[in-house]
């Protein structure tokens, strides 16, 4: 089961790859706007996240939750909910 920390690390690594910087340079409390992410990049990011996490997500994710820290916390909750559903 993916944890908030693992999710945060995955997103940082993804953004670092796009931005061609070291993952350590990505501050998880920066707002996504500061990374210069446009809508096409957000859709690709959400698509890859869906594949990694194994469930569907809304493309509005990075608008509703402004920072990596916020998104990771939200997704970690979703992972927990998905697991509970699977266990029922």
């Amino acid at each position, binding site marked *: 089961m993916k944890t908030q920390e693992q999710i945060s690390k995955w997103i940082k690594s993804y953004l670092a790859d796009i931005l061609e910087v070291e993952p350590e340079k990505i501050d998880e409390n920066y707002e996504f706007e500061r990374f210069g992410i*446009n*809508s*096409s990049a*957000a859709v690709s990011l*959400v*698509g890859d996240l869906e594949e990694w996490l194994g469930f569907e997500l*809304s*493309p*509005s994710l990075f*608008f509703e939750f402004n920072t990596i820290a916020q998104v990771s916390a939200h997704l970690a909750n979703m992972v927990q909910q998905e697991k509970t559903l699977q266990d029922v």
Partner: protein
Amino acid sequence: MVETLTNRGGSAAAIQHHYDVSNEFYAIWLDSSLTYSAGFWDDPILDNDLEQSQQKKIDWHLNASGATTGKRLLDIGCGWGALMQRYLSLDPTSNATGLTLSHNQYQHIGSLNIPNLQVCEESWIVHQPTTAYDAIVSIGAFEHFAQPGATLEEKVSVYKEFFGRCQQWLKPKGKLSLQTIAYGSLNAEDKNVFTQTEIFPDSELPRPGEIFLASDGLFEIKTYRNDRLQYGKTCDLWLKNLRSQKLLIVDQFGEELYRKYEQYLKLAVAGFYFGQILLLRFEMQSLAK
């Protein structure tokens, strides 16, 4: 660029490419009124009630256009007729005329056999009413009036022609309620190739300034709203509906169509939320005396 008489103001082939996929397909993921445009919320916190947001949108336009106090309404780009049906349900003695270039939409509305409702399978370019209208509404049609690659002058020219016709068809001081997607931070040259070729071929969005320029001297803009987050929310709700019916859609219409619409809605959600595209609503009053 050479414009033909048939594609100036909206190409029938382009409209049919998108809207004539299948009425049954759209019925699966739109709301029950088959309203295929941004919903309206009066609360900044957008709830998940798609059905109610579409009814509110229709009522907003009926009020903004003055249709609710008039007897004759023209709906340019009338979709499957939800707005005209709502109008006539408020006063069955009124008269509504709808224009569409979609053959499926035309047939669907005709099959409803609603008294005092006429639907014409024609562009506004060739529409020739014999009696003035009290109100005009146009939702989600303006996006198709200009051609890809058109210059600013060409776009404003066709938009001006549209506003001129509307003014000519309205009674003095009559109102037009207009809703359209527009470019925000996105430029025409940077637009998504997938959306341009697969989803809405042969269509070009306006920029807000082009609408102001084209309507100047013809209409007074009484209300101007940018409700892009409301369209983002609407597309998000459509996407949820589409995904929840994936098995049915893939079974009846194939995986390719499902994937195409899923991708289109994902891009639309993000486009509106990021402000790359806007959703504009105008209440305009004719300046003709």
